[in-house]
């Protein structure tokens, strides 16, 4: 197992029902401080609902989530979220959107301005400060969405298929950007995706959901050291992990957990 840090998020026996339909049940896993946990599963398996329950945007039907030891009822302070469809306010400029979390917390404009400027630089949106979301490409909108999430210096960052609405090239670019940004600011992160490659590239561990109602099939250690870059996808370890996760998600009947790639010790070198 990872030696990352203390447990930041504990998902404990989580269950969600809509009427009689059970979406998922018995979902239990931890996210440590500074760790990225990818959550994969076939579409419709409740990944997004799981994420919304985890941060207090939806009520679980059973079980609980603890963030920093506190049971989550409403979204706790220090949680930020990045959305598949960006969730930028179309009537606000890029700057105002990024500053939203700070403005709502009552931070003065003068105090927020340098922070926002730094974030705009970090995500590569210089020159678009006064643009409106509709004037930006999808990739640029998600950069703003990411900057808005980072603005509050979150201790928990949840991402709901953040790159799924983007074209393949933009997605590749933003994945690498996120890896780069991740090296400078760390939080406990839950990264929901239906892309298995993305799950392996981003995650320290991967939670695999499957079945109907879905439950955790397995939790895999990715075991690729950080900092990561594009070369990670060429490694043997990447291939092995991806292959296993792929077969697990595709409900390969003959797949046994015994075949899972061995956990590696040297997952992260420092911190």
């Amino acid at each position, binding site marked *: 197992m990872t030696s990352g840090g203390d447990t930041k998020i504990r998902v404990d026996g989580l269950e969600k029902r809509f009427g009689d339909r059970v979406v998922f049940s018995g979902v239990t896993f931890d996210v440590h401080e500074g760790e990225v946990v990818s959550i994969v599963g076939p579409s419709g398996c409740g990944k997004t609902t799981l994420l919304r329950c985890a941060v207090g945007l939806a009520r679980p039907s059973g079980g609980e989530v603890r963030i920093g030891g506190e049971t989550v009822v409403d*979204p706790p302070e220090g949680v930020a*979220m990045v959305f598949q469809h*960006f969730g930028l306010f179309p009537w606000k400029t890029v700057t105002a959107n990024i500053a939203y979390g700070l403005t*709502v917390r009552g931070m003065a404009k003068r105090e927020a301005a340098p922070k926002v400027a730094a974030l705009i630089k970090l995500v590569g949106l210089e020159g678009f400060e006064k643009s*409106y979301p509709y004037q930006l490409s999808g*990739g640029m909108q998600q950069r703003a969405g990411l900057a808005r999430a980072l603005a509050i210096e979150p201790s928990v960052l949840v991402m709901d298929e953040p790159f799924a609405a983007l074209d393949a090239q933009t997605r590749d670019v933003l994945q690498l950007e996120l890896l780069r940004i991740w090296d400078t600011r760390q939080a406990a992160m839950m990264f929901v995706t239906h892309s298995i490659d993305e799950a392996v590239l981003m995650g320290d561990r991967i939670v695999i959901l499957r079945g109907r109602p879905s439950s955790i099939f397995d939790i895999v250690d990715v075991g690729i050291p950080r900092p990561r870059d594009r070369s990670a996808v060429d490694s043997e370890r990447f291939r092995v992990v991806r292959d296993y996760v792929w077969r697990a998600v595709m409900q390969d009947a003959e797949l046994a957990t015994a075949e899972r790639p061995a956990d590696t010790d040297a997952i992260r070198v420092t911190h």
Partner: protein
Amino acid sequence: MSKVVATLTDEVAPETRATAAQAADAEGSAARRILGSTGLRILAGVVLLAIWQFGVTLFAPAYIATPLNTVKRIPAVFADPAFGADVQTTLLAIIEGLAIAVVIGTLVGLVMGRLPDVNRVLGMYVGTFYAMPLIAVVPLLTVWFGYTPEARLAMVVLEAVLPIVYNVAEGARLVPTNFLDVTKIHHAPWWRVWGGVVLPNALPYVLAGLDLAIGRALIGAVVAEFVTAIPGLGYYLLFNVRSFHENEAMVALLVLVAFALVLRALINLAISRGFRWYRPA
């Protein structure tokens, strides 16, 4: 990583790229198309007016209005200070009524759109009022308000408020879940949720409702004047028709139409200028 950064800046907003290329290409044909359709429109108008003009001169008594006589009367009617006063009182009543309707309609619409319980209670009544010919209410209004300008104002508000309520409720209902998630994650206070997210999201719908409300407001004002005989454009029109001054009545009608067109043009301008971000779902 520097290579990555270079690719980033290449992500130009798609709209800018497309419009530049298309504009250069389509300029010639677009100009021709606009000229052609404008020409046809004018031609159709001239033909209709000519049919009216000749139809009346050939087959109808002399007091029936014709386009030419109406135009001839315009200077005289406009020079009449009584007409000016009538125009002023009616148009001001319509503007006042629309303003009241926008405020009430927006508030009611926002609440109905966001709170399903309120919608369950009020929705049926709003729907009923929308289906009802409100003209039938005017006699009641004259009982409640007397034969006064207030009765006219009440009628204008009643007519105008319903399409605004409907549209705003729709706009408030369609606030994307993501937007509300953002407000919850950041613990935005209620006034920031309503004023900063629900209202801005519904603003294009306020204007769309107002656009529909203009025609109804005009009907309300004119009908109220017909019934109550209080001074105004509607009563001017009725009085002149009844005293066989049909051409004068037509001038009053033209003023009403021009007023409605100007208001609607202003609103459409506001939508296209002020709400560039708005993309219907």
